[in-house]
């Protein structure tokens, strides 16, 4: 297995995709967090009024001391989750595209070991992407957010762990989707179109009737891991919203955390792990038997 994992790393490192994708990851993650970091200082003032004040008071927080920095990080790392997803698509569908899958299967003891090696090496890649994305998002947050709004040490660690977990899952999700569709271009377009547009539109349009969608669909749950950590720090998650708060106030607050409809960070992680498993297992099974002609 060690041999095959080494081969997988060589495959990635001998092409340019891995570092080319890092460019938008670093740039977008930084600027998204930078922009939100600037907004959150204002957001803290918004929190200090109306419904938000009640909310904050209900969990015993002074609006001035809310860790709004978490919101900045959450937005930065969530938007760039698209990148490890695209990277994951190339892992297997890309090998079918260039037909290197033939040699990959011919040089592995069997397909289970070839796919397992791929999974393990891409878990490492997902973690690395997550670490980098978190690093630049944290940097932007430290630069922009006033010190009362900075997260506590535990919250920093929680956000880091959540980011890495989310990035690993998203990478595996991309592998699975690519493997099921077996077409690189289609899978990439679908990932970007769905995560960026389709699901967001769906959640907002159907919010009135099915506010649960954002808490269970792939994009919502992927965002909900780090977003949920941020939301929890504010008591924004839907379980804690006081009864007299309207649907749209709740949505607005959760949107601010970058995770509309989020249930909780761990529920999001579990549900998104489920989505990942569906695609990953589907892709795995179809590869186990697929004729390479």
């Amino acid at each position, binding site marked *: 297995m060690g041999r095959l994992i080494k081969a997988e790393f060589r495959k990635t490192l001998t092409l340019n995709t891995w570092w080319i994708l890092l460019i938008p990851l670093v740039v977008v993650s930084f600027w998204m967090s930078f922009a939100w970091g600037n907004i959150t200082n204002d957001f803290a003032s918004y929190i200090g009024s109306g419904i938000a004040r009640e909310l904050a008071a209900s969990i015993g927080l002074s609006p001035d001391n809310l860790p709004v920095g978490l919101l900045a990080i959450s937005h930065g790392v969530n938007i760039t989750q698209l990148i490890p997803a695209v990277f994951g698509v190339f892992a297997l569908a890309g090998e079918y595209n*260039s037909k290197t899958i033939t040699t990959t299967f*011919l040089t592995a003891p069997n397909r289970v070991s070839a796919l397992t090696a791929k999974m393990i090496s891409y878990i490492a890649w997902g973690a690395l992407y997550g670490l980098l994305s978190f690093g630049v998002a944290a940097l932007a947050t430290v630069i922009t957010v006033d010190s009362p709004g900075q997260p506590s040490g535990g919250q920093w660690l929680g956000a880091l762990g959540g980011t890495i977990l989310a990035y690993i899952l998203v990478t595996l999700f991309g592998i699975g989707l690519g493997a099921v569709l077996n077409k690189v271009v289609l899978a990439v377009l679908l990932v970007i179109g769905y995560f960026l547009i389709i699901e967001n539109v769906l959640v907002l349009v159907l919010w009135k009737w099915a506010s649960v969608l954002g808490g269970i669909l792939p994009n919502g749950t992927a965002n909900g891991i780090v977003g949920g950590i941020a939301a929890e720090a504010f008591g924004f998650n839907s379980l804690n919203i006081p009864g007299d708060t309207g649907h749209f106030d709740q949505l607005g607050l959760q949107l601010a955390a970058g995770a509309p409809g989020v249930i909780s960070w761990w529920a999001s992680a579990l549900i998104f792990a489920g989505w990942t498993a569906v695609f990953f297992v589907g892709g795995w099974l179809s590869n186990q038997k697929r004729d390479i*002609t």
Partner: protein
Amino acid sequence: MQHDGSGRIAVQNLSKHFGPVAAVQNLSFTVEPGSVTGFLGPNGAGKTTTLRMLLGLVTPSSGVATINGRTHDQLGNPATVVGSVLENEGFHPKRSALNHLRVYAAAIGVPDRRAEEVLGLVGLSSAAHRRAGDFSLGMRQRLALATALLGNPQVLVLDEPANGLDPEGIVWLRNFLRAYAREGRTVLVSSHLLSEVEQTIDQVVIISAGMTRYFGSLEQLRQGQRSRVLVQPSDAGELVKALQENGITQLEPTQDGRVAVSGATVQQIGDIASKAGVALYGMQEERADLEQLFFQLTQGQYSAPQPQYGQPPQQGGWGGPPSGPQQQQQYPPNYQQQQPPPGHQQPGQQGGGWGGQG
């Protein structure tokens, strides 16, 4: 699980259906080490599918294909047992030749210097840092062969390796494969052209329409062919009559007015003609070439579902055990269908031939 190390390829009752299409039907043959075996059949005969089943890339519908007594997924580290060159496969266009080999050297577990070694073996050392996407077809074939050799395998399987090679490359490949087999290893090489591999192979498996037509040594196949003598007599009718009286009955007219005699030597024909008082202006011994035989063995793939190979009476069990090469070579039907020149026809005979046709 350990393979037996024999170097033997065994294909037993192998079948593959792609939906309603039967690509391979009940194919059986074995390939022994120490020789180069040709795997021949027209395009679409099922060669590639068979090789891919052998290599574990395609799952058989039924039957089994083994190397060293094991299926590909039971070989342990398969690339150290079998290396393969498949058509047009397996390189990322943006990866350099050396990096491509280093990836798979890692997967097989051989040291990195092996990647440079095999590049040298196939004559690509100077192109090591060029991207595979910039390679010519011939260079890609060499790189594919280099990949196959990484694990120093006992068995080499090549699918149409001559495609894209220039004449010099073909000669080089031929010598390489023959040397490889001489080391006691197994080489199986597919082609749709017998002439392309005729000088490379010792053994041959011929398939058509997904079924085995022949397998055995190429030498036996050659010997199994009967020669015929083309005779230009002063009087064809007299000669035919004389020959028939002497029990030589496999006679056919040729387009240029000569008589084609099978089953007799030049000396016999000369003696008989002399006794009959027929002058002979020329005799030429002719062996039907292997390509013609190959064509006959594989024809009908596109014309009839159950083609008849070699007409009766001597049906010699095509595709039988390796000991049974076809003994009775029949000329293709067009030999009998030719119209004889005027004046050669025997009374009472219609169409071609002088009676007693074989």
